Each structure stands twice: as C-alpha cells, then as structure tokens.
C-alpha cells in the first residue's frame, strides 16, 4: 500500500515538472520525485518490527532491517543535493539575464 503512495508522490513530482511554467516549481517537482524515491528505497529495506542491524555479542538476531538501501539513499541524497544546488544556481543566473522565471518567456533557442 505504502509503495503505491510513493508512486503517487513520484507521479505528482513528474506532473509538476511537465506542467508547471515556473522554473522554481519545476525544481521543486524534481525534488519531490527524489524524495518519493528515497522513501521507496527505505521501504524496500523495512521489515515489520525489525531492529537496527548492529551485531552484538551474546545476542541472537532474528529480525533486522536491511541496511543497504539506507546506505544507497545517503548517496542518492548527496547526488540530489549537488543537482539541486546547481539547478537553483542556474535558475538565479537565468533570472538575472531574462528577468523572469516563466519558462515560456525564456525562449532564445528555437528550431
């Protein structure tokens, strides 16, 4: 069930990217997609009633959460940070040049 929720959030982000005209909203759309994926990854590793995967002596471990997706998500978050920072920087530079965030008015390239 929660998997579908993640997919819906992903689709909402995709809708924002495709349909919105404001550059900032498009960037937010991409971030929403990213977060949906991050949540999905963590869900893949989740076990009902699982505990953190720390190995201790004299303790039998039965039900642990898969730690690998969490590690992957850390990497994905860092990559997302880099992309978002660069996107926002570009948006600011474009605003300086064109004086607008509306992508329908930023059309010097054609053909």
């Amino acid at each position, binding site marked *: 069930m929660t998997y579908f929720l993640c997919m819906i959030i992903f689709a909402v982000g*995709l809708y924002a990217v495709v349909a919105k005209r404001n550059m900032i909203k498009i960037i937010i759309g991409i971030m929403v997609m990213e977060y949906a994926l991050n949540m999905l990854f963590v869900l893949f590793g989740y076990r009902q009633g699982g505990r953190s995967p720390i190995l201790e002596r004299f303790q039998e471990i039965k039900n642990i959460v898969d730690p690998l997706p969490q590690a992957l998500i850390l990497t994905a978050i860092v990559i997302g940070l880099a992309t978002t920072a660069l996107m926002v920087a570009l948006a600011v530079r474009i605003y300086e040049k064109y004086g607008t965030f509306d992508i329908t008015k930023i059309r010097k*390239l054609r*053909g």
Partner: protein
Amino acid sequence: MTDMNYTMIPLFVALPLTVSFLIMLLGNRVRWISDILCTLCTFVLCLLSFYAIGVVNGHAPLIYKVGGWFPPVGICLVLDSLSCFMLVIVNSITLIVTIYSINYMERYTAKNKFYALFLLMLAGMNGVIVTGDMFNLFVFLEIGSIASYGLVAFGTEEEELEASFKYMIMGSIAGLFILLGIGLLYSYTSTLNMADMAQVVSEKSGSKLIGFVSVLFLVGFGLKGALFPFHWWLPDAHPSAPAPISAMLSGLLIKALGVYALIRVFFSVLDATSLLPVLMVLGTMSMVIGVFLAVGQWDFKRLLAYHSISQVGYIMLGIGLGTPLGIMGGLFHLFNHSMFKSLLFLNSGAVDYATGTRNLKELGGLRERMPISASTSMVASMSIAGLPPFNGFWSKLIIIIACVNAGRPVYAAWAVLASIMTLASFMKVQKYVFFGELKEKFKAIREVPFAMQFSMVLLALICFLGGLLLVPAVSGDFLQSAVDVITNGKEYAKIVFQSLR
C-alpha cells in the same frame, strides 16, 4: 606482473579525479600547469586503454574488488572486451580534444575550471564503462552528467544557461527513472552486483517486473542517449557548449552514458531481448527524424547536433537487430561516429575561432584561407555521409546488409534514405562554409593554431583508416570480441564468477 594487471582498472576513474583536484589546487598559482597536467593525464589514460586491449581480448575479463570485498558483497569493477572497446574510444578522443582545447579555450576565462569539469566528466564516463555494480553505475552516471551540465553552461550567456537548464531537467528525470529501476531490481533480486543480478534474474524468469524495469531503463538511458521521443534537449544543449565540449558530448557522453549503459543492462543483466524490436523502431525513427530536422538548420553546430540524433539511431538500429552482424555494425558505427562527429565539431569550433560566427549564411569560401580545416571537414563530411573509402561507409554498409539478412528490408530502405539525406545536408555545409566566394570581411582571417590543426588532422586520419578495423589482420579481434560480449550476454554472470577465482 600479469597478476597485477587488474590494479589498472581503478586508475581509469581515480586518475582523472585526482588530476581534476590538483588542477583546482595548483592551477591558479602556476601558469600552464593545468594544460600540462590535463594533457599528461589523458595521455596516460589513452596508453592504459590501449594496453588493456592486449590484456583483456581473448582472455578472461579483469576484475578489481574495491576494498578487497568479494562480490556480490562488495563493489567490483569489471573490464571485459566491450568495456575495453569503449575505453579506447573514450580515452583516445579525450586526448585529442584536450590537445585541441589548449588553444581553443584561451578565448574563455577560467580555463582551470574547464579542465577540472572536463576531467570529472571523463571520470564519470570511464566509471560507467568499467563498473560491475548497478548502483555504482548510477553514481558515475550522475558524476558525468553533473559535470556536463556545468560545461554546457560554461559560457554563461543567455542561450547557454537556458540550454543547460533544459538539459539538466531532462538529465535529472532520466537519472531518477534509472534509480527507480535499480531500486525495483534490488527489491526483486536482493543484490546490486550486475553478475549476481543477472544470475538471479535468469533463475526467477517470467516476472512482469522485469518488463516494467526494462521500460524504465529504456526511458532513462534513452533520455541520456537522445533516442527519438526523448531527443529534443540535445540540439539545444550540445551546440551551446564550447566546441571541444560539444565534441565530447556528441562523440562520447551520449554513447557512454546512454548507448553503452543500455547495452550493458539489456544484454548482460536483464537479457531483455524481447524489447529489441522497440529499439529498432525507435532507432529508425530517430535516424529519419534527426536527419530531416538537420537539413533545414543554418547554425553549423545545431545542424551537427541534429545529425548526432540521426547517427545514434543507426547505432540503435544495428544493436536492436540482435544478430551478430547487426551488433557488429552498430558497435563499429559507434566507433566511427565518435571519430567523425568529434572531428566535425572541432571543425565548427575552428571556423568559429577564426571568423567568430557559426551562421552558415554569413560564411563562405573559407577553403582558401583555412586549408587544413577545410580538408579535414571534407573528410569528416564524406565519412558521415557514408562515401567509400571512409569509415562511415563500411559501418553503414554492414548495418544495411544485416537488416537485409535479418529479413527486414524496410529498415534497410530507411537507413539508405537517411544516408542520402545526410549527404545532402553535408553538401550544404561544404558549399556554404568552405566553397563559394570569400566574403570581404573574412579576407584577413588566418588558419587556426598548430595544436588545433594537429588534433583535426589526427582525427581525419582515423576517419580515413577506420575501415581497416574490419580487417582482422590489422585490428586483431578488437571489434569482434566486443561483439561477442554482447551476443553472449547470457554468459556474463558465469564468465565474471569464473574469473573471480
């Protein structure tokens, strides 16, 4: 010594990363050092990639276990014949482009930043090529892409920023689709190692999830590689970058990040042969639509960018046929296209450098003043149009023969049509830029500096002699063993696990 050969694999990633760091550190203090460091680094990588041919071809693939962890637990880097083939293409063109940009990039400020981003992009591409781990593939893909977004916006004028923003949105969406595919595959196979994944997928056959994941990868890598319905960012992004970067983007980046990654995932990991007809249809459509859009262009670099879409279509058509001959044609065309498209972009850069314009209508008669650029661009134009004896002819011929052999003459007819249109549009380029009357304001222009001439001549020679790769006596099994890796895609897991011991 032979046992230590695998230690060279991480160098393909580590060396450019280190040098890029050093350039940012030292570049501002000592003049010339960034030129020297960057050229030296790409030269060493080029030599290493040529050395790798002899080590890998005809032998088992080399495997480097990062941190000493045995796969499937740890990340591994795998160097097989197909990776080797791509590494040779990527690193040799990078060397040539670096030599070219020593002079060309004098026009821009912040040359150090250019070199640093350039090497980051190279590290990303090499990483995608050598990696044997799905998530690692995604990480390197993003390293290469982020560096390329920065490079497209390098001029920081209105057009460049706009193109870079578009490119970046599309690239991020592509990356997210690929990440979603990787996540679903991980939940399905509980492993990230490509070889292990391939094994699990083949054991658990008959799931609908694999079909869904293949489509996600097709969209993601198709966006990165500018396949037909996802092509429209390319004609904005590639011409906006400085000329050496256009050459890198069109010649290498869309192939390493798009085509190679798609081939690797589809053939080696997922064994998704049922999607090959889709590849063929998309390839043919991008081939035809790209070339039709290209004919009407008046901007030199924009015209070349549309041709990139068309030529990637040829590669995809060849790969999508799935027969050994078709795959061979596709890979050979990949090699050739990197050579002549890089050369054409370098030519356009040379014209821009000398005259300051890329508009075909304003140019003319440059043949008298720039003989080297004119003759090398003639070679490249004839190669891309597929005239014998240049390399483009042979690969297109193989693709067309493979289409006919596979019983699909309609695709062959489209390929011939696209080839004729290509010839027409490059006759237009030659006529308007290099032939005809020399305009009054261009009477005083001079040929470009030596380093730029040198790299253009080198690429023209490769275009001229590229057809010899088909002759086994000259190239050994350089091309053939790369083809074998794809046709034996199912064996990938077995081969990798065997050579681990």
